[in-house]
């Protein structure tokens, strides 16, 4: 990934112009802005990163050698890795913009996926967030990234935790079901343990990777998990069966503990958000 180019020159020019102008723009709400200020940070501007990839499912195995009666679950490792790497690339480019702005972190990071009608298999991944900084503090090797909003950042810091990175866990598997299962399920109501098992394995692969990424960043935990399981049926070329491709995506904000604060006394509040 290190060989991948950074943000385009036009983006860097925009960021430098923003830095030198002494003003900033962001999509923060007023409540979030107040919350960020209350814990000693100040916003420095909107930052983005994007990458367009050609992504297609590949490596679906032949079911010819599958033992009858046994479901065949194969990981689509290259496909899963591509889905992960492209998100990481978009995030890295966004982080580069934050560094250009002399920032320590990015909050409210959102990852979006967009497909194009005219270009099959071309998918654009975009990361966008608000860069924040603490005046006078030494620069970090890499800014912290958080999918949480400004209000949550303030609450988290007061609870003695700080976001460190966006942890991503993605896995995709192909499951071939032998017709034994299909026939049984045509006769009676059955729990399809073959499909449940495949769902469990793709999930555990993805969650394991999420956890590993968080650990690699020296985090103590992950909050605000966003999980998504995509399932689509694919025809099996040899048998008259329904095969499935399963894709599990998990994104969470990894947090590191820097303090164990004493529980504060409850106090009446006027909420700044409309939840």
């Amino acid at each position, binding site marked *: 990934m290190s060989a991948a180019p950074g943000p385009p020159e036009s983006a860097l020019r925009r960021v430098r112009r923003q830095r030198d102008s002494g003003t900033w723009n962001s999509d923060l709400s007023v409540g979030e802005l107040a919350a960020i200020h209350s814990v000693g940070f100040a916003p420095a501007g909107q930052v983005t990163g994007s990458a367009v990839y050609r992504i297609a499912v590949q490596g679906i195995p032949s079911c010819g050698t599958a033992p009858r009666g046994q479901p065949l679950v194969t990981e689509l490792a290259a496909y899963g890795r591509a889905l992960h790497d492209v998100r990481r690339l978009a995030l890295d480019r966004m982080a580069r913009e934050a560094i250009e702005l002399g920032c320590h972190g990015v909050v409210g990071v959102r990852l979006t996926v967009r497909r194009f009608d005219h270009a099959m298999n071309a998918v654009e991944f975009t990361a966008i967030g608000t860069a924040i900084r*603490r005046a006078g503090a030494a620069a970090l090797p890499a800014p912290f990234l958080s999918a949480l909003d400004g209000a949550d950042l303030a609450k988290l810091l007061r609870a003695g935790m700080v976001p460190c990175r966006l942890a991503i866990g993605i896995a995709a598997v192909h499951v071939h079901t032998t017709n034994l299962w299909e026939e049984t399920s045509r006769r009676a109501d059955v729990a*399809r343990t073959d499909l449940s098992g495949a769902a469990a394995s793709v999930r555990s692969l993805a*969650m394991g990777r999420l956890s590993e990424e*968080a650990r690699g960043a*020296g985090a103590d*935990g992950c909050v605000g998990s966003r999980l998504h399981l995509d399932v689509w049926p694919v025809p099996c070329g040899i048998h008259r069966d329904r095969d499935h491709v399963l894709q599990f995506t998990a994104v969470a904000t990894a947090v590191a*503990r*820097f303090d164990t604060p004493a529980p504060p006394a409850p106090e009446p509040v006027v909420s700044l958000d409309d939840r």
Partner: protein
Amino acid sequence: MSGRDSADLAVRALRRLAAPISPRRAPFTCDLSVDELVLVERAGLEPVKLVMGTCVVSVLRRPISRTGELRHATNAIYRARRLAVEDLRREAAGVGAHGVVGVRVEVDEERWGEDLHEFVALGTAVRSRTGSLRTGGAPFTSHLSGQGVHALLAAGYRPLSLVMGAAVWGVSRWDSAAWLSARRRRRVEYPEMTREIATARELAIRRMGVEARAVRAAGVVGMTIEQRSHTWGGDAMEFVALGTAIRSGDVRPSGPRPRAVVSLDAASPRAAEIRVDVEPLRRLDN
């Protein structure tokens, strides 16, 4: 919090990030918001792992010839939910958790293909720091949020398990046509339909009650009734009653006493609402 304290907060947080120490334990994962995380920790629990359970079940289409319970569908759907929750509980027990909070069961009827229903149970496995919730047996399950669990423990109760009751009711095409046509002759209510739906709902609640008694619960909190429509060879309605069975805790209630508050910011529900529609003034000469 004074300005100086909060300024220190940012500096101390950045210092932690500048010198990353590798934690001894694997990082926890959770399905909690920041608010929930803070409250769960304050209640003496620590999140361990986001746990899930899946059950995909195929429910056959059988023609609905008479109105009444579809026993096969009730059994299949109830069993699938139960299996998904048991799967989740097993994963929680595997990581040494004492309970699972915020358990929810999501249903998908489309993505796997025809006749296949997927039930996914997910929640956050937690460990009790004080040991007050250690039961020695299986971890508890609760559908209450982090806020709910905090309030429950503060009130001196402890969660036991998620309890459920299901009833799938089939309405034959002939019956529904007869009922609906009767409307022209009689009153506005469809009395047969009222009766069938009420019976099905009562049955789901009663079955949930049986589960609660089986775990010797003092009561069930946060009960909800989900209602869903299916078409399995006719019209079918699924009723699922769901709640958390609770019992008085061994520990005395701790933390702040509950107080009644008048909120200044949130809209409070009103029994009656008066809406005034203002029509634009019309000029007389128009």
